[in-house]
């Protein structure tokens, strides 16, 4: 029987990740008040969110310290599903463009 991997992140790493997440949140709030185009703002905020999510999964949820097979089983399929969902944004942008032409 395999034993569970007991390697974990130390306090220093956990608190560094926490500060990093708080810092990224402050950056997002700062960006929210910049006069950037909506789509640009959306893309930047989502990239920052993906980065924050990756930190939470890797360190708080411990996936970085698990067997690689668990990562391979869970994450690529999920990314594929998310990738398939992004196709709707082309239509969203088309709709917004058409509405602005009518107005």
């Amino acid at each position, binding site marked *: 029987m395999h034993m569970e991997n007991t390697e974990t992140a130390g306090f220093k790493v956990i608190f560094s990740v926490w500060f990093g997440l708080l810092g990224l949140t402050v950056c997002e709030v700062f960006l929210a008040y910049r006069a950037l185009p909506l789509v640009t703002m959306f893309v930047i905020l989502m990239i*920052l969110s993906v980065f924050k999510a990756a930190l939470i999964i890797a360190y708080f949820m411990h996936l970085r310290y698990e067997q690689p097979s668990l990562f391979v089983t869970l994450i690529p399929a999920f990314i594929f599903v998310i990738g398939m969902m992004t196709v709707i944004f082309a239509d969203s942008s088309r709709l917004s463009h058409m509405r602005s032409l009518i107005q």
Partner: protein
Amino acid sequence: MSSSSDVVGGVHGQAESTTAKLSFWDGGSLPYSIPSKKLGMWLFIVSDAITFSAVIFAYGYLRLAAPDWPRPFETSSIVNATVMTFVLLSSSVVMVLAVRASSQGKVGSAVGWLLATALGGVLFDILHIREWLGLIHEGVRPFQNPWGTPMFGAAFFTMTGLHMTHVTIGVIYLLIVAAGYRAKKLSPVDVEVSGLYWHFVDLVWMFIFPLVYLLSAKMA
């Protein structure tokens, strides 16, 4: 022609291989080196993440497609949502401490951290309900609002409501785990599995906060 010792060796090897297969299929080994409860929670998280993704993508679609999407969130609302983010992130760190204490066999300490995590969830819910009541007071309903696209209310309440439901279920789950762990009916693995759920709830908020609040902040 093989000798008798080869035949014996071959039969013995075959028997060993059969035993290994039997123990594998009998559940005698852990292919991911984690307990089955933990794997079950990971699979649930992936399926729930897909549900949230669908809702988040639908919100994103509506947000980008509507030029008259309301921007109702004053600075006070943004500050409130930022505090909610801080509370949730901090509760995640506290949850890590609970998992660590339980893995070291420190029951009292683990229960204390679990209760502190649940308290963070309660605080998050209170702040969120306050935000909801503020918007309802201003006239936001599922299919109408005073500012723009009528869909804003439905999209906002659906997404934040789904998340708030998860937080509330998480608080109840943590309290059950804390009580069970204290009574020695649950193991450190159960604490770790509840931690995975809590971190997932935190993770989802990392997308809802910028998408709902920051993209609809009222400019001065």
